[in-house]
């Protein structure tokens, strides 16, 4: 009976997630924030169905009461916090973004509960606490008028935090990325990602003179270099790409993008020569099979998981995802692909893509350059991080040891990603109800292209 239920659940979950994914692109259409109420409601319903089916299977396999407790707690969390968001901010927040946020959290909860109840429990507590903080963020973004002007606060706070990690950092998997705050290993680089985008947006939105571009480059470079010396190359890469992307939006000059990529290429070559753990990652990427005992072990196990799972997946508890080292963080995608299947995994990537596009839509709808840049910068941060994690897991690119936002286990990561989502919602609610007279041509432009 367990077997047949698991098998049926496997197919049901695939159908539901594919349907959800379809909806997540439907809701992107139109130039209003919330344009497709039917699809939005459907998304919400599908999320609860996926959550219910998956936890039923988890319970059947584990047969422990605490699973039911966790499930009910999560249902309460989803419905109450979502209710609060919708009631507080009425129709102004992006429901599509809210739905995707809960869907990604839901997939994360399912995967984590299956892999390690302790991790899932801890993650749930952090998510709940953070969400309470997040209720206030959109309104703060809207009413605090000096947010665009605290340029140097963002910059200095960011550099100091990264500097502290460099000095006091604890070594984790070859990189100094966290400091111990009591029981909780805090990763400031996650938090600095937000400050960094705010800094660049504030600085670049005021003027785009050559002098300012050079100065912005110096300070952005400082962030990246500290990260490189902390050996946190995944984050360094994210910061770098975000800088180039934001610079291009602010200046519109491809020359800067060219310079950026030339510099980036040189920097990666230097990093390759300088750091042994970069060489190891590249080696494991190029041919994991020849070094399967050591360097290639993780990537090989990840590919075994994805490959053995195939299109339909092995079914929850039918695979062996725990054979992948650091599975709950860097390789959670592989665990999902193994047990829930390739179709599910591709849907997950598409949901991440639609999340990115929602960010972009909000960036384009907001008339103010600062908020445009913040939303865009955070969109790029989100995307690069997603691509680095998933791409690393499927051997599309060398693995860099970053987490999949909202899905992977990791207190700092999920905390900061939720704050980012809340900031975007804040930008979304501060989009004026009627577009300005001077702007419509812009909007038509991108509508045509879409």
């Amino acid at each position: 009976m367990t077997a047949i239920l698991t098998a049926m659940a496997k197919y049901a979950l695939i159908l539901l997630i594919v349907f959800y994914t379809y909806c997540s692109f439907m809701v992107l259409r139109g130039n209003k924030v919330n344009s497709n109420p039917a699809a939005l409601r459907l998304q919400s319903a599908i999320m609860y169905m996926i959550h219910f089916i998956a936890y039923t299977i988890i319970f059947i396999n584990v047969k422990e009461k605490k699973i039911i407790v966790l499930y009910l707690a999560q249902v309460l969390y989803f419905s109450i916090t979502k209710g609060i968001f919708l009631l507080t901010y009425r129709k102004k927040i992006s429901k599509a973004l809210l739905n995707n946020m809960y869907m990604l959290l839901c997939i994360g909860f399912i995967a984590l509960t299956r892999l390690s109840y302790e991790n899932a429990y801890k993650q749930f507590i952090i998510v709940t606490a953070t969400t309470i903080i997040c209720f206030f963020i959109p309104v703060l973004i809207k009413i605090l008028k000096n947010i665009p002007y605290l340029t140097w606060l963002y910059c200095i706070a960011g550099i100091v935090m990264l500097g502290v990690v460099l000095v006091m950092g604890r070594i984790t998997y070859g990189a100094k990325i966290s400091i111990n705050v009591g029981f909780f290993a805090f990763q400031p680089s996650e938090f600095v990602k937000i400050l960094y985008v705010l800094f660049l947006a504030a600085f670049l939105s005021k003027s785009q003179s050559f002098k300012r571009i050079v100065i912005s480059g110096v300070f952005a470079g400082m962030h990246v270099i500290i990260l490189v010396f902390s050996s946190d190359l995944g984050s360094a890469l994210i910061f770098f790409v975000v800088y180039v992307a934001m610079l291009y939006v602010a200046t519109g000059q491809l020359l800067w993008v060219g310079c950026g990529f030339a510099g980036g290429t040189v920097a990666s070559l230097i990093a390759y020569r300088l750091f042994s753990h970069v060489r190891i990652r590249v080696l494991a990427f190029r041919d994991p099979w020849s070094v399967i005992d050591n360097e290639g072990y993780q990537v090989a196990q990840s590919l075994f998981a994805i490959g053995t799972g195939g299109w339909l997946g092995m079914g929850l508890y039918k695979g062996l995802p725990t054979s992948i080292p650091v599975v709950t963080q860097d390789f959670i995608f592989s665990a999902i692909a193994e047990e829930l299947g390739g179709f599910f995994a591709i849907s997950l990537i598409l949901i991440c893509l639609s999340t990115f596009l929602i960010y972009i839509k909000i960036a384009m709808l907001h008339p103010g350059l600062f908020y445009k840049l913040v939303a865009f910068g955070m969109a790029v941060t989100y995307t690069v991080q997603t691509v680095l994690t998933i791409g690393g897991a499927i051997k599309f690119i060398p693995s860099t040891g970053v987490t999949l936002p909202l899905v992977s286990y990791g207190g700092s990561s999920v905390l900061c990603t939720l704050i980012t989502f809340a900031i975007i919602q804040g930008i979304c609610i501060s989009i004026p109800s009627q577009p300005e007279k001077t702007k419509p041509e812009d909007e038509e432009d991108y509508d045509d292209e879409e």
Partner: protein
Amino acid sequence: MKNNEDFFDDSFEILDESLIDYSDREERDIESEEVRQNPKKQSEIKRTPKKKNFNRFILNQTILFTILFLGMIGYLVYFEYKDADEVINNNYNKRQTILDKSVYRGEIRASNGEVLAKSITNEDGSKSRIYPYGDLFAHAVGYNCNGKAGLELAANFKLLTSNAGLLLQIKDDLFGNQHPGDSVITTLDVNLQQSAYSAIGNNKGAIIAIDPATGKILTMVSKPDFDPNTIESDWDYIVSEEGNTCLLNRATNGLYPPGSTFKVFTLLEYIHEHPGDYSNYSFDCSGTLTRGEYSIDCYNRNVHGHESLIDSFAYSCNSSFANIGLTLDMTQYKHLCKDLLFNSNLPFSMTYAKSDFELNEKSSTFEIMQTVIGQGKTQVTPLHLSLIASAVANNGVLMRPYMIDHVENVDGRTVKQYESEKAKTLFSAEEAKTLSEFMGAVVSYGTGTKLQSSEYDAYGKTGTAQFDSSDNSHSLFMGYAENGTKKLAICVVMEDMPAGSTWAVPAAREVFDTYFAS
């Protein structure tokens, strides 16, 4: 709540003004002198003539990042569709224990459908693996215990994957039955395998035969062997016995000195270096060749007298080839051997040993004289030599050798068909033709005359490879036979048997006769 919303709406007007015109605010330490004096001016410049379309810049990059996402999805699809099957079939993938519980291991069959390995359920519910042909296919099919070998290893995950229909799978789930694993249909030919098996007899050695046009491995025999039906209980005895090498698949993993079969490589290098006039080469053989303090003897010190290049090859004259070898450009020679798969990976997906060639620019005269006639440090596998013969037979094109023809589900529906594919062009068509002329001479008047037949034309090179200082040697043959478009490439190695022409050639003949009789 109502108040709340009003509050937001009211604040819009003030907020928007201040947000759009940042340039009205000064940042005194950085803004330029001009802007500081006249902030309005800067904002005007920004707004009217230089107004930037920020959304366009955002959109450009959005397209780029979207392509990145789609590229990643494309890669994942490609991986699942194309690579996954091969990737997961790895001993490091611990999932086979899981699959073993849920899937009933599939059958391995010969090309005509004969069952070579199947699983049965015993009365007590335990499972056994049965090999109806006993030790005939011991090395090709392998065994499914103690780490696995042969096809049982190479196709492990295919045998443990069930592509049974969805309804059947659901039915099996309902009744708690195991899913029927897929069956692997090989390229192996039972008849040919039997003839090769009897040709080696009780000697040690290996025979591998390939269809040159497709790369299908039709026969793979290695002796000594074992009975896969009882391997589990025999295991401790086999591994504890000193010098027992019955688990070694000599066809793919046995490294042998090539002996005179290596003259094919030396010959080709000489032809490369003398493209127009190699037919003018002549040599007077006195049974031995001396250079300084070293000398090379012909087999049995036979005196071959005045001979051309083709005669030297047909008679396998060591003196003449040592003489040729000393004139060769070592750098080019080394490259040629590398191109012909020495010191490199073979295009073969199962386990094999890499062949080894160690001559270079610094090698001594004696090393060169030894190596060009196939002695020295060179080591080669029968698989490798059969691939060279196969490429000569196929106009210089090497087809990727393979043993799995297709995979079927339990209902006999083909799940995956393996197509033959080109691995590499080893020779130009012209070179292949020249080599076949030389190899034909070996059969028509040289050391391989025992292969003359009315059923087919045979081509090849014999070898007698000395493996110790007391003149003990292995007997080798590499070559092919053809009748119209029907071709078969072969390599025979018989250990510790004197002279290729006496032992390996008749063995090759038995296999050719069987193949062309059918």
